């Protein structure tokens, strides 16, 4: 029963992302990326990552993409629609992508993976995805967690300094 839904979600992801990179209107592209993120959230639920699915919808679609849309609204987008959309280097880009795709394919084709294990909470050992994730995040990964908070602070200050107006003194 999982497999048809996996194919449905992955077809949605691939189609919307292909549409996303070919749009000339950036607002359409951003909204298509929101749709991609919703399909990805469905995929995460299928993979047993319920908390990440919620984060994907709330933070990614609701936070980051709204930030993108606000910034697009602040800029003059109508100029950008009318000009040439594709870069001149696209021949080399296709070449590089073919090489990259061949590399990924050759590595994936060789991989031998062990048998799938079952999540502990499916067996009744631990409470559930969110609680298990929280207990891992705040014990084993507490140092990377703090480093990420410093990174967020640094990028916030950097964004404010970069985007603020110059004050003549």
């Amino acid at each position: 029963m999982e497999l048809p839904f996996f194919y449905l979600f992955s077809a949605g992801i691939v189609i919307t992302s292909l549409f996303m990179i070919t749009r000339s209107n950036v607002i359409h592209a951003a909204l298509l990326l929101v749709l991609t993120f919703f399909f990805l959230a469905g995929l995460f639920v299928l993979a047993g990552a319920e908390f990440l699915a919620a984060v994907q919808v709330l933070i990614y679609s609701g936070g980051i993409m709204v930030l993108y849309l606000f910034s697009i609204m602040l800029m003059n987008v109508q100029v950008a629609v009318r000009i040439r959309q594709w870069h001149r280097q696209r021949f080399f880009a296709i070449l590089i992508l073919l090489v990259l795709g061949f590399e990924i394919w050759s590595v994936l084709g060789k991989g031998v993976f062990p048998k799938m294990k079952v999540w502990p909470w499916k067996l009744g050992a631990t409470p559930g995805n969110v609680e298990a994730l929280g207990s891992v995040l705040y014990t084993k990964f507490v140092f990377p967690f703090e480093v990420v908070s410093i990174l967020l602070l640094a990028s916030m200050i950097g964004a404010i300094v970069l985007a603020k107006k110059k004050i003549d003194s």
Partner: protein
Amino acid sequence: MIPLSHFLTLGAVLFLIGAAGVLMRRNVIIILLSIELMLNAVNVTLIGFSRQWADLSGQVFAIFVIAVAACEAAVGLAILISLNRDKTVMNVDEVNLLKW
């Protein structure tokens, strides 16, 4: 039951689509959105492996990837807004301040 190879293939395809967007488009915002797409492809791979081994480390790293994506979006959009202050710059090949 979904095999792990399905997740890995989807991640690879998504990463290639994002890389195509970064390399072939001129619009700066589309390039930033394609970078988000590539980060999500990595998330798909991490979650596929996390499911295969029933290990939560992959999901924790996916959370970190989302945090880094938020940082990248904030700084990238700030650079874009400061570029757009004087005149409208929407294409990457027009930004050549650091070119010699």
